[in-house]
């Protein structure tokens, strides 16, 4: 409980420092306000109850950022190629995939990651089912689509959110 309060406090403080710069007065005021906000709102901030805070989860979070950036770059180039190709080689469709994640926040982050990678766009979710608009449908069944779209993100999020 205390650990997660500290996390919230440092998160607020870091955002403040990024915004205001490293002036001593600014940091002191920022720290006081962050502390107040943490004390007042911590009991309501249920979003942090789903994080696992241990070295492995933090390590996987950092790897996740890199994996995600790489996927973002790769699929951006792919979609850019489809746009400039004279024949527009697209093969679109809405496919259904399933996730193994139980945590709500984890599911939100997974859906947003899928949407942020070009070529896939989450249209609707229903419990563990995601309906994804895919610009190039290469596999027809749920398992194949799940493997290609979801698995690469899921294995990291599973460790982070459980």
């Amino acid at each position, binding site marked *: 409980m205390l650990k997660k309060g500290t996390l919230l406090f440092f998160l607020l403080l870091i955002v403040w420092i990024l915004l205001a710069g490293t002036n001593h007065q600014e940091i002191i005021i920022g720290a006081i306000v962050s502390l107040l906000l943490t004390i007042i709102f911590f009991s309501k901030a249920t979003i942090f109850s789903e994080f696992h805070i241990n070295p492995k989860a933090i390590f996987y979070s950092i790897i996740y950022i890199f994996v995600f950036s790489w996927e*973002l770059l790769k699929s*951006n180039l792919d*979609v850019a190629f489809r746009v*400039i190709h004279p024949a*527009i080689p*697209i*093969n679109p*469709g809405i496919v259904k995939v399933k996730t193994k994640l139980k945590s709500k926040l984890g599911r939100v982050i997974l859906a947003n990651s899928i949407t942020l990678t070009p070529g896939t766009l*989450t249209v609707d979710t229903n419990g563990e089912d995601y309906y994804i*608009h895919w610009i190039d449908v290469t596999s027809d069944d749920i398992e194949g689509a799940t493997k290609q779209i979801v698995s690469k993100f899921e294995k990291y999020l599973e460790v982070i959110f459980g």
Partner: protein
Amino acid sequence: MEIFGAVITLIGSIFLLLGGLGILRMPDVYNRMQTGTKATTLGSILFLIGISIGHYECGCLGKIAIIILFIIFTNPISSNTLARAAHFAGIKLTSRSVKDDLKEDDLENKGEEK
């Protein structure tokens, strides 16, 4: 340093240009959303990173980091909502589409309700 920043900004601008081109060329609203809302994500991010490198003396690195975070957090939410609204407003997929699981499942659910 300035030239390096300018090159990154230029690459970002190219992605933004391709995103705009994609809106013109793609056949239906969902594919337009693919390029229009998201090919621009990387474009904007690279554009901002390029500016922060080119003008590193202005001390705006932190602010640019926050702008990038806001783009990453808000962009998918708006695209989700737009796509979902378009689908439930009954906008058809292009005739080149392969399959539509969401529509099939909706029809099944309605059948069960009746």
